[in-house]
Structure formats: C-alpha cells, structure tokens
C-alpha cells in the first residue's frame, strides 16, 4: 500500500466526514475551555478543502495535501486553520508524488514541524501537538517494524488517543484555553481531539 493521489484525496474527504460527524463534540470541548468554534471551524475548512480538491484535480499526493493545506489556511479562520493548513502543506511538500510507509512517516514528521514552527507550542502545552507528536513517533516505530501503512496508521491513532487523554490533566499554555489558567485542567484539548480524527481518517483510507 502506498499513499497515492487518490488515497491522499480520500484521506481529506474521510477527515471531513469524521470531523463533520463529530462537530458537536469538538464544539463542546472548545466551549469548555475555548470559544466553542473548533467544530465549526474545522468543518468549514475541510469542506473548503474538499471543494478545492474537486476543482484542482491534483495530479500527485503531495499536490493534494498542499491544496488541502492552502484552503485550510485561507478558509478556516481561528488558530487551527493556519496550523493544520501549514501542517498539510509541509506534509505535501515532503511527500511530493506519492509515498510508501517510510515516506508517509517523513510527511507526518513534516506536518508536525509545520505546526510546531507556526504555533510555537511545546509538548505539554495542551494543544494538538500533544496528540500529533506521540502519534508521529508511534507511526515511525510501527513503520520501521511492520512496513505496513495501515498498521502504522492504526498505531498513530492509538498514540494520538493516548496523547489526547494525556491533555486532560495539563494546564494550557497556548491558545485560548491558556486564558483559563488552572481552570483549563480537567478537559480534553479540542485540537488534540480533532488530530485523532484526522489520523483515524488516514488509517481508514489506507486499510487494505
């Protein structure tokens, strides 16, 4: 299994479906410690990404991710739009034509770097990084052990879920939740929750 153009497009489409289906939950999480728009933001951004993919008909997996990233940046708004958008752009640049499991591992690594560089969040700041960073590590470990894209994707989802759970006791130091100080403790970070969905979409579309 490789991540080719069709699979990359399917990844974005599936991410949109999963986010849309869970929009209310993401909004609820963001209402608790943010401003209650994360579900709406990401739904809007991914809807725009889907339209852009339809229009653009990308001819490589990298192009697909760059196209999705650009429209996430220009259409989402909020913090998560530029962050995820830059993440997908960097992943696409890294991936180029298409990629096997090792290339996807590098692309996810680039995604993480793209988010970290733009947002400046460190591990433990209670952001999407706390789900994505362990997920990328788990993906890499599984990739080198199994050489199986789907298995690596599943490992990434499991690690992201654990990372999401780990955000609960954290006190936020970035994003709107940081304004709550200690009151941000005890809640899942909405961006970490959406990261789980995005990775689940990848695992699903790479199922054999």
């Amino acid at each position, binding site marked *: 299994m490789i991540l080719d153009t069709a699979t990359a497009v399917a990844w974005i489409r599936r991410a949109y479906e999963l986010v849309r289906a869970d929009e209310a939950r993401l909004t609820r999480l963001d209402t608790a410690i943010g*401003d209650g728009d994360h579900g709406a933001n990401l739904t809007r951004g991914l809807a725009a990404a889907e339209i852009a993919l339809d229009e653009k008909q990308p001819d490589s997996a990298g192009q697909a991710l760059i196209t999705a990233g650009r429209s996430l*940046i220009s259409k989402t*708004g*909020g*913090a998560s*739009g*530029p*962050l995820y958008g830059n993440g997908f752009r960097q992943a696409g640049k890294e991936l180029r034509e298409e990629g096997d499991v090792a290339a996807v591992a590098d692309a996810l690594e680039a995604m993480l770097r793209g988010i970290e560089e733009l947002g400046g969040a460190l591990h433990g700041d209670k952001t999407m990084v706390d789900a994505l960073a362990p997920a990328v590590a788990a993906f890499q470990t599984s990739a080198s052990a199994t050489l199986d894209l789907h298995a690596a994707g599943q490992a990434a989802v499991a690690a992201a879920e654990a990372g999401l759970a780990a955000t609960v006791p954290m006190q936020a130091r970035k994003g*709107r939740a940081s*304004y709550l100080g200690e009151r941000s403790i005890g809640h899942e970070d909405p961006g970490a929750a959406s990261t789980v969905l995005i990775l689940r979409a990848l695992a699903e579309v790479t199922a054999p």
Partner: protein
Amino acid sequence: MKKLINSPDSLITDALRGIAAAHPDLAVDAENRVISRAQPAAAKVGLVSGGGSGHEPLHGGYVGYGMLDAAAPGEVYTSPVPDQILAATQAASTGRGVLHIVKNYTGDVLNFRMAAELAEDDDIRVVSVVTNDDVAVEDSTFTAGRRGTGGTIVVEKIAGAAAEEGADLDTVARLATEVNERSRSFGIALHAGTVPAAGTPGFDLADNEIELGVGIHGEPGRARGEFAPVRELVAYALDAIHADRTVSGNVLVIMNGQGGTPLIELYAAHAEAAAWLAGRGVTVARNLVGNYITSLDQAGFSITVTELSDELVRLWDAPVSTPALRWGM
C-alpha cells in the same frame, strides 16, 4: 436560543448587508468580507484591523475618517482568514504602507501573519502591532500571552489620527505600540453570551456567581466570583489594572458594555470608576461609556484605562467619523 437572525450560517452575510445599508460612508465587499471607506483616503498610511465577529461595533464600526481604512470581520468569535485580510490590506493601501492592528489571540495573530506575507508579495509594506491590554491573563513568554481587548479601540483612534495627519508607517506603528503599552483592561461578566452556531451560553453561572477576568469571546474568566454591588465589582477591576500598571496622571477610561448590559447600569458603574479614580488623585481626562467592544449579548462590563499624554489627548480629540465614534466633523 432566540436571536434576530435568519440562520447562524447567514448571520455574517446578513449583518454585512445591514452595515452596507446603514452606512453610505462605508463600502462593503460582501464576497471578500471587507468593510472599507467608501471614499478611500488619499496617500496615507493604511490602517487595517479585524477579528472575529460578535464584538460589534468592533471592527467595522471603527472604519472611517480618522480611524481604520478597512476591517476584516471573521465568523463569530473566529479570526478572519488570510485571503480576507489581504483584501482589506489592498483596500487600505495607498502606497505608504499598511498597519495591521491585531488583537493578541493565536488565531488572529497567525491569520494576520499569513496575510502580511501575502501582502509583501504584492509589494505592500505591512507592520503589525499586536494589542494585549487585558490584565486578567498572566503574561509570559511561555504562554499565548495577554489578550487584546478594549485598548484596541484607543490604539485604532490614536494611530488613525496620526495616519490622517500624514505620519509615516514607522511613526504610526510606534504610536500604536505606545498606546497599547499605556492601556490596561479588565472585564467581569454576569451572564455569558450565546454564540448563534452553538445555541447555548458559553458558560453557566448560578444566581450569585460572576466571572472575573473574562475575555471578549465568552471564555470563562480567570476565576468565578460572588456577585456583589457594582461599587465592589468596579473596584475589583480597577485594583487588578492598578496592580499591573500604576494608574496615575491623566487617563482615558472606557466603561464598556459587553452587549447585554443596560446603559443605565454602565452609567452606575462609571460613577464608581470615577469615584475610585478621584480617590487616588487620577484625572479622567476623556471617557467613553457604552457598548464599544462587545461579546454578543453577554451581560457585564470591562474597563479600559489608558494613561494619556498631552499629545495623546490631542490625537484622541482629532476629528473622527465612523459609525461608532464621531466628533469634530
């Protein structure tokens, strides 16, 4: 949830149509979601601001002679997107550079940064000033830092007056930075507002509870407090401001309503603020009392205090003609 809307999805579009109908002095680009002056200024530094909607009259209400050239309103409580900010920047550009006045929220900062990069591609020189006047939030290099709230209005007014007088981009930016540094704000909410797309209030408060140190997005504050007479609430807010930056000399005070507070209550609150300041020998040289930066229908107030110099008083008093602030013309 009952609101004067057609649907949460159409609210921004509908409100933009209303702004266009109400204010012939403004041009509304519905497609790009940009509010700009109907008569663009002749060569001067352009001023652009923007941010989530739901804070009306911020930002569109401050577009006009003496203040902003263009504003980019995002979805409710959501920063605008870079394309939109770029369009606003283009509308504001006369070749002398453009100042972005950005409230310090991760989303706003990131989206404005993206837009500034795109504008540089168009050979528009952009300088950004990030406002962060809200003392309720601890400031630290390890966090997102303080939020930009009511001080933004003072920055826009004074930078706008300087730009109108012909100051160059660096001067206007320096002045904006200075005003931001001289400004501090603190907000207290009695009831949360309701984001139309969410349908329920941002937080629930019992009959004797209030939120201390709320932001402008229905975020819960830094602590929940007990309801008290307005004299004590105002003193709490001013004490927090004073603890952060000594309040002294001549000041501008904005006694701001959060959208769901009756004006009579804001006047009662302003009476207490005036008494608190007079008791410390501080002179309220200028003031505003009313809804200037709101959080939909949230009930509560915020106080902004800016220490003025003679030059800042002069620029504050300079003519302005926008939907929300108008004097001298």
